[in-house]
C-alpha cells in the first residue's frame, strides 16, 4: 500500500476498489502498533469507532453511492478535543478516565464527511507547552529525529502525520501549538482566523486565543479539512457567519504579484543561524514565484510574549477552575469541601499547568489587575493594530515559524521563561486573531525541519493556502 496517502488518494483508491476503508484503517493500526511505543504520539486508540465508520464507507462503495469528501481518510484528534465515547485526557492526570458524552463540532463535521477517527494524540497538559514534554503521559519523540522534541503543544498530532500514522490530524493552537510542531516535524499545519472554526467541544485553555486546525502532508489536504471544519456553529457564539470559500478550488490561483511583507522585527537577534539561512532561501523561492517582497515594520513584536503570557495564563486560571473534583475527573477525598478542591487540584495538575494557574491568578488578583491584565489587553490591541496596518500595504506576511530548530528532549525543561521566549514568532498572530500556516522550508543538515510561517489578514485563509501550495509545489520543502 502507498506509504503516503492524501485525502484525494484515499477517495480514489476506495472508489476504484483498490483498497477498502477497513483494510486501510487496519493498515494504519498496524503502523501505529509498530511505531507508537517509540514515538508515543497516540494516547488512546478508537478501533471500534474507526472500524464502524470504515464499514459505513465500504457499504457506500459496495452500493455504488457517492462518497463524502473525506471518505475513509484515517485521522487523528488531539486529546484536548472532545470525542464521543473515546477517552479524552488533555494530557492530564486530572482527566485520566474522562469519556466525553459528545463530539466537538469539528470532529462531528469530519465524521459526517466520512473520516475514520483512529484515536487521540498526545499533547502538553491542557495544551500548555512548546515541546510536548508537559504531558502527564510522557513526551512524544520527533519522527524526523527521535532524540528531539516534536514541538508542542500538539506534538502527537504532528508526529502522527509526519510518521505516516495518520493521513491528517486536528490540533489546537493558542500561541503556536499547531504551527510550531508542524514546523518541527516538517509538515504543513494551519490555524484559521479566530472565529473561523467552532471551539465547541475543545476543552478550553485560553478562550480568546484557542483555535482548532489541521495537520496534513500537503497544503491541498489542509484546504480540504479547513473547508469542512470552518463555518458558523450555533454552539459557539464566537464562530462567525462569514461565508466559507471553497479553499481547494481557489488553491491554484496564481501567486505572481502577491505582495509579501517581511517584518524586520522577526529577523532581529535571537534567530538560529541555520534557521535564518533556510528562511532566506525560502524567501528567495517566493521571489522566483513572482511575489513582490516588501520590508515592513511591526513595532510591537517584541512585547508579544509578555502580553501573551499575561492573557493566556489569566484565561487559563479561570477556565481551569472547573476541575474541582465534583463533576468529572480526579477527586482526592477530604472531609472538607475546600480541602478536597485544593488536594484534587494539587494532585491532578502537572508542574506547568500549576505554574500558569498561579501566574494567571496573580495577574488577575486585586491590586495587580490594572498593572498586568489590563495593560496586557491594551498592548494586545497595539499588536492587532500592527497587523491591520501591515495588511493595508501587503497581502500576506512571511516569517520563520520558530527561531530555533527542534531541540533535544530535556534540553529546555528547567527554564520555563526560555521555553516561553521560543514562541516569539507565533504568539503575535494568535493575539491578533489572524490565520497562519507553517509550511516545510528545508531541513538543516538534511535532517532538522524548518518551517516558514505565512500570516494572512482575518478571514484571508484562501490566500494563505494559495501561497503555501505554490511554495510547496515549487519545492519549498527542500530549499
Amino acid at each position, binding site marked *: 500500500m502507498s506509504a503516503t496517502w492524501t485525502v484525494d488518494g484515499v477517495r480514489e483508491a476506495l472508489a476504484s476498489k483498490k483498497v477498502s476503508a477497513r483494510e486501510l484503517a487496519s493498515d494504519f493500526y498496524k503502523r501505529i502498533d509498530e511505531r507508537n511505543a517509540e514515538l508515543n504520539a497516540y494516547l488512546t486508540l478508537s478501533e471500534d469507532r474507526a472500524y464502524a465508520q470504515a464499514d459505513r464507507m465500504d457499504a457506500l462503495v459496495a452500493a455504488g453511492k457517492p462518497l463524502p469528501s473525506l471518505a475513509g481518510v484515517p485521522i487523528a484528534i488531539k486529546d484536548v478535543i472532545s470525542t464521543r465515547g473515546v477517552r479524552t485526557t488533555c494530557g492530564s492526570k486530572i482527566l485520566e478516565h474522562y469519556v466525553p458524552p459528545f463530539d466537538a463540532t469539528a470532529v462531528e463535521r469530519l465524521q459526517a464527511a466520512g473520516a475514520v477517527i483512529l484515536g487521540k494524540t498526545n499533547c502538553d497538559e491542557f495544551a500548555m507547552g512548546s515541546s510536548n514534554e508537559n504531558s502527564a503521559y510522557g513526551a512524544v519523540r520527533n519522527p524526523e529525529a527521535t532524540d528531539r522534541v516534536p514541538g508542542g503543544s500538539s506534538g502527537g498530532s504532528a508526529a502522527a502525520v509526519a510518521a505516516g500514522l495518520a493521513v491528517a490530524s486536528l490540533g489546537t493552537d493558542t500561541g503556536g501549538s499547531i504551527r510550531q510542531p508542524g514546523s518541527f516535524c516538517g509538515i504543513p499545519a494551519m490555524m484559521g482566523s479566530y472565529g473561523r472554526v467552532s471551539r465547541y467541544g475543545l476543552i478550553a485553555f485560553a478562550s480568546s486565543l484557542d483555535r482548532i486546525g489541521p495537520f496534513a502532508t500537503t497544503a491541498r489536504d489542509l484546504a480540504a479539512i479547513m473547508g469542512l471544519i470552518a463555518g458558523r456553529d450555533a454552539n459557539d457564539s464566537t464562530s462567525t457567519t462569514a461565508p466559507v470559500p471553497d479553499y481547494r478550488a481557489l488553491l491554484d490561483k496564481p501567486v505572481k504579484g502577491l505582495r509579501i511583507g517581511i517584518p524586520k522585527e522577526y529577523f532581529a537577534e535571537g534567530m538560529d543561524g541555520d534557521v535564518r539561512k533556510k528562511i532566506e532561501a525560502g524567501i528567495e523561492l517566493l521571489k522566483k514565484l513572482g511575489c513582490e517582497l516588501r520590508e515592513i515594520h511591526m513595532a510591537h513584536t517584541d512585547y508579544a510574549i509578555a502580553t501573551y503570557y499575561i492573557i493566556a495564563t489569566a484565561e487559563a486560571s479561570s477556565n481551569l477552575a472547573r476541575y474541582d473534583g465534583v463533576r468529572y475527573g480526579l477527586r482526592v477525598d477530604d472531609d472538607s469541601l475546600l480541602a*478536597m478542591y485544593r488536594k484534587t487540584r494539587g494532585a491532578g495538575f502537572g508542574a506547568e499547568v500549576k505554574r500558569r494557574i498561579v501566574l494567571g491568578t496573580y495577574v488577575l488578583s486585586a491590586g495587580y489587575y490594572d498593572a498586568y491584565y489590563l495593560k496586557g489587553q491594551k498592548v494586545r490591541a497595539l499588536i492587532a493594530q500592527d497587523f491591520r496596518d501591515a495588511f493595508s500595504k501587503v497581502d500576506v506576511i512571511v516569517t520563520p515559524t520558530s527561531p530555533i530548530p527542534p531541540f533535544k528532549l530535556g534540553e529546555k525543561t528547567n527554564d520555563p521563561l526560555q521555553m516561553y521566549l521560543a514562541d516569539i514568532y507565533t504568539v503575535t498572530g494568535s493575539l491578533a486573531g489572524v490565520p497562519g500556516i507553517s509550511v516545510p522550508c528545508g531541513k538543516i543538515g538534511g535532517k532538522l525541519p524548518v518551517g516558514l510561517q505565512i500570516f494572512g489578514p482575518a478571514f484571508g485563509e484562501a490566500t494563505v493556502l494559495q501561497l503555501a501550495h505554490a511554495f510547496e509545489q515549487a519545492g519549498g520543502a527542500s530549499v
Partner: protein
Amino acid sequence: MERVAELAYLDLSEAELEMYRTQIDEILEYISKLNELDTTGVQPMAQVLADEQTADATLRDDVAVRCDVAAEILKQAPDPEPPYFRVPKVIER
C-alpha cells in the same frame, strides 16, 4: 505566593512554592517590559472579532433542545448520587 495558591485552590508543597516563587518572579520581571509602552488612550482588546463579524452570530433562537445526557454525565462523576453530584460537607455545625 501562598496567598495566590489559596485563591486558586491549589495545594502546593514547600518545594513547589519555592520553585514557583523564583520562576514567577523572573517571569513577572520579564513581563514588566510592557511598562516601556505608553498605552494612554488605547482601548483594551476585550474581544478578538469586530462587532460587524459577530453582530448576526451572537444570538440563536431561544428554542429548548433535549439533550438527554444527564445519566452519562453523572457516570463521570467521582461521587454521584443520581440525579445529584455528592460533595463533602459544606456547612460545618
